[in-house]
C-alpha cells in the first residue's frame, strides 16, 4: 500500500489556480502519551513537508505534535507550464518519504 496519497489535477489551463491535496500515512506519536506502566511513549512525528514544482519550492510546512495522525494538507498554486510536483516528508527516527505527480498545462 502506498504511504502517500496525492491529489493533483492531471490537466489545467495556463494561469489556473489549482488545489493540491496530500495525505501521508504516519502515526504522529506526540511524545506526551504514557503507557500503563508510566513510561513516556517517545515522540515520532513528521517534522517537515515540502512541495516543489519543477525543482522550485512552492509550499513548505513545519509540523508539530499538534498535527493529527496521517498528516493531511491542502494548498494552492498557479500553474504556468507543464511539469512535475515533488513532495517530500521528513521526520523523527530518520523518516523520509517522497512522492510526485505530473500536470499537463495547455
Amino acid at each position: 500500500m502506498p504511504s502517500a496519497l496525492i491529489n493533483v489535477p492531471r490537466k489545467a489551463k495556463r494561469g489556473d489556480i489549482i488545489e493540491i491535496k496530500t495525505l501521508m500515512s504516519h502515526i504522529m506519536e506526540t511524545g506526551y502519551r504514557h503507557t500503563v506502566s508510566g513510561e513516556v511513549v517517545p515522540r515520532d512525528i513528521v517534522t517537515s513537508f515540502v512541495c516543489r514544482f519543477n525543482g522550485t519550492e512552492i509550499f513548505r510546512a513545519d509540523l508539530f505534535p499538534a498535527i493529527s495522525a496521517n498528516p493531511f494538507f491542502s494548498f494552492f498554486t498557479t500553474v504556468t507550464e507543464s511539469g512535475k510536483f515533488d513532495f517530500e516528508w521528513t521526520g523523527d527516527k530518520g523518516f523520509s518519504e517522497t512522492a510526485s505527480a505530473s500536470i499537463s498545462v495547455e
Partner: protein
Amino acid sequence: MDCSTRREFLALAGGAAVLAVTLRPAEATPAMLASAIRNVVGTAAVKTGKVKLEIPPLVENGNTVPMTVSVESPMAPEDHVKSIHVFNEKNPQPNIGNFYLSPQAGRAQVSTRIRLADSQKVVAIAKLSDGTFWSASVDVVVTLAACTEEVI
C-alpha cells in the same frame, strides 16, 4: 452552617483542587502562547484582520480537527503572504504548524487536521511580504481531548 463541617468542606475542596491541578497533564499556558508568538513576530505589532480561521466551534474528537486558514491577499510578487503560523493555548506545546507560501500560490489558503487537547483558543498569524502581521483567533469547545490520553 456548622463551623467544623465548613472547615471539613473547605479542606476537602482544597484537596480536590490540589488533586485536579496535579492530575492535569502538562499544558501550554497563555504565557507560553505569547512567547511562541513573540518568537515568530519579534517586536512587530500584530493586527487583527485579513486572516480567516475556520474550525468547527464544537468538536467531538480532538484527535482530528479540520482547520482551514485563509488570508486576504492578491498573492502578487510585490504583495503576498509569506507564511502562516498557527498556535494554541492549552496543548502541551503552543505550536501547531508553520506554513510557508510563495507568490505563485495564487490563493493564500491552507487546510490541515489538528489535535486539540482541551477546549481552547486557536490563533493564526499571517506574515505578509511588507513585514506586517495579521491574526485571527477562534474559541473551540472539545469534548474528547487529544494528545495526552493513555496508551491502552
